[in-house]
């Protein structure tokens, strides 16, 4: 059972309020601010009044408290069991966590209990000492906001050197790969598969006035015909993207997706996978790419009736 109040926003917020009450710095204004910053949108209607009215008798009238210590909570068994389960995950080799305190704890689940049946088979080599070193150097660069000098191999096999400002490490569960999101020397956003990096070295701090260009975005609109449960399949499949869906009529919908332009080729095959359940109507160049694929398919011989 993990839907419990001890993990809740209210307990967490009240703990912050009481910490200030214990050291005598709590004011009305601070109480309201803590609720606004930490709790939900409408919590300001409940938490301050419950504390001040004595419904929750944790504060006295002058905003002091009978508690003697700033509130804290030990880790629950559930939290420890989750941490223990992580120790069985091959990706934990990238981190160097503290193993103490988990000796007598059962893992919350075992890797063999969960099958990622459609994950790609060429995931990153988490057990490689070189990969681990590169990962940790990239992580250190991110934490310390430092530039990186990297040598990587292109898909064609050529070695390249580059200097970049790392922004984030991006992980794809489908690809089981990390990518370094960075800003290159020409102030353009770029992504480099971590598995293609052969060496990397920390450089100076990223200049404070460095730009943070975003990856260019694209928009795609299609008609969705709800046959063979396509409505649920399509909308769930694209649910991780920003999208807008409008019902046009019985079993007919219009969906607009927003995605990173660099993923256009991937987007094309994802759209094709739904066959005639999806009809792209915009932008025209995307429609033309689909037509091109279909023309090429028609041109190939013996398709598909030979057996």
């Amino acid at each position, binding site marked *: *059972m993990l839907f*419990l109040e001890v993990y809740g926003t*209210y307990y*967490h917020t009240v703990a912050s309020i009481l910490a200030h009450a214990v050291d005598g710095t709590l004011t009305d204004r601070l109480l309201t601010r803590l609720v606004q910053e930490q709790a939900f949108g*409408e919590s300001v209607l*409940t938490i301050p009044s419950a504390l001040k009215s*004595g419904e*929750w008798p*944790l504060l006295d009238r002058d905003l002091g408290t009978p*508690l003697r*210590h700033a509130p*804290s909570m*030990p*880790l629950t068994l559930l939290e420890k069991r*989750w*941490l223990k*389960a992580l120790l069985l*995950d091959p990706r934990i080799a990238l*981190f*160097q966590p*503290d193993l103490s*305190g*988990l000796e007598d704890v*059962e893992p*919350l689940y075992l890797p063999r*209990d*969960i*099958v990622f*049946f*459609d994950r790609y*088979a*060429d995931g990153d080599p988490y057990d490689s000492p070189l990969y681990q070193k590169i990962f940790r150097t990239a*992580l250190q660069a991110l934490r310390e906001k430092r530039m990186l000098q990297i040598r990587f191999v292109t*898909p064609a096999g050529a070695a390249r050197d580059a200097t970049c400002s790392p922004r984030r490490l*991006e*992980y794809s569960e*489908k690809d089981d790969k990390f990518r370094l999101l960075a800003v290159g020397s020409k102030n353009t956003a770029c992504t480099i598969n971590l598995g293609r990096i052969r060496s990397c070295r920390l450089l100076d701090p990223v200049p404070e006035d460095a730009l943070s260009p975003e990856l260019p975005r694209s928009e795609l609109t299609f008609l969705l015909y709800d046959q063979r449960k396509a*409505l*649920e399949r399509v909308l769930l499949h694209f*649910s*991780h993207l920003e*999208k*807008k869906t*409008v019902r046009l009529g019985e079993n007919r919908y219009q969906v607009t997706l927003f*995605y*990173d332009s660099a993923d256009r080729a991937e987007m094309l095959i994802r759209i*094709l*996978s*739904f*066959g*005639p359940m999806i*009809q792209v109507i915009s932008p025209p160049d995307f429609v033309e790419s689909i037509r091109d694929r*279909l*023309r090429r*398919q028609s041109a190939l011989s013996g*398709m*598909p*009736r*030979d*057996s």
Partner: protein
Amino acid sequence: MAYQELIKNFDKIRRYIRDFYVYGFRSRMEYDTKSPRSYDNERRRIESWLGDYMSFHQDAAGKRMFLSLDSRHIPHNPLYRAFQARSFTDRDITFHFFILDILADGKPRTFAQILETLQDTQTEGSRNLFLDDSTLRKKLKEYVSLGLLAAQKQGHTVSYRRTDSDSPDLTRWEDAISFFSEASPLGVVGSFLLNRLPEAPDLFRFKHHYILHTLDSDILAQLLDAIREHREVTLTLESPKTHALSHSPLVPLRVYSSTQTGRQYVLGYPEKRLNPIFVRVDAISSLTAGDPVPDWEELNRRGREAEQHLWGVTIRPGRPLERVEMKVHVEPWEDFIVRRLEREKRHGRVTRLDANTWLFQAEVEDAKEMLPWLRTFLGRIESLSCSNAYVQNTFQADLDQLNRMYGLTGEEDPNALP
């Protein structure tokens, strides 16, 4: 009953969040609820928890709420907020802070000592709360089962202490928690841990990130517990159309999680235990754990056999395997197509036939499940054959329809693009 921001039961709100997030085109009147007030309350709660991500569009039929975000561009899954909205009583929150405060020095104390300290430190408002010592007993027992307290028995006396000293140093887990809270099963537990850190690190982003799984975390945790303990469970399933509830026993063996469709399933044996089945986790409203199953290992062995030729999540016992062969045209500069075949083939085989042709072959339980993947090679397929004629015919019919749809045949299609 007056509106409250917090809730006791997660199942109802789970359906609303899912609907706003996946569909987002329904108006207030289209929600199948006992009263429009119920819809208003759930919508108001979700806005209160996830307001930054809520939007709406308005048309003649009314306002249509939706939750929209690109999970690639945010550090943490906002749906975790819903798991932090459990309601509680005045007594719960008061005992919580007082008990942990009394034991904060790390020294063990007996029930009587805790009760006495509580009564000494009480404020005027708390006096009535501490009169009933059975509530304190229950709360101490609950906190021992949660692992917040440890109970030590000496003779007839039980003393309680906090368990801080038995825990790892979270500051040395910061980066790992930040990553795994998004990239591991039951990541919501990681979000609870992140809340304990002074500042959550913002180092990672997640692509192809299906955050909706989160809503099923409580069910998933119970299923994984049952798998670990080899227990049978009784599932309460809700029909998506009629919302009628049914109860089904199942011996769960494994969870199947898709990284491409956003769905999760549990594989297990139903009541008669003849053949294994898959059940969608998001269709399970609740479950009750039963007794351990003595023949679990035998069922697991049979399950493993049945899983040998799965492409997706369909098992068709007693039917012959279906054979699929696809010849793919690859130009010399298109190595990435060969890499795609190799990494996406699952238990299929890939061989080179000549300079430009690669053969994919597989024997699967249900070739229909392969149709979406096969279509991703459109424009490169030299030939496709399947021992199930339905699959081959459907592939061709869909292709013909696509050609009409995009105006590539002489035939008129009402939906053809200009």
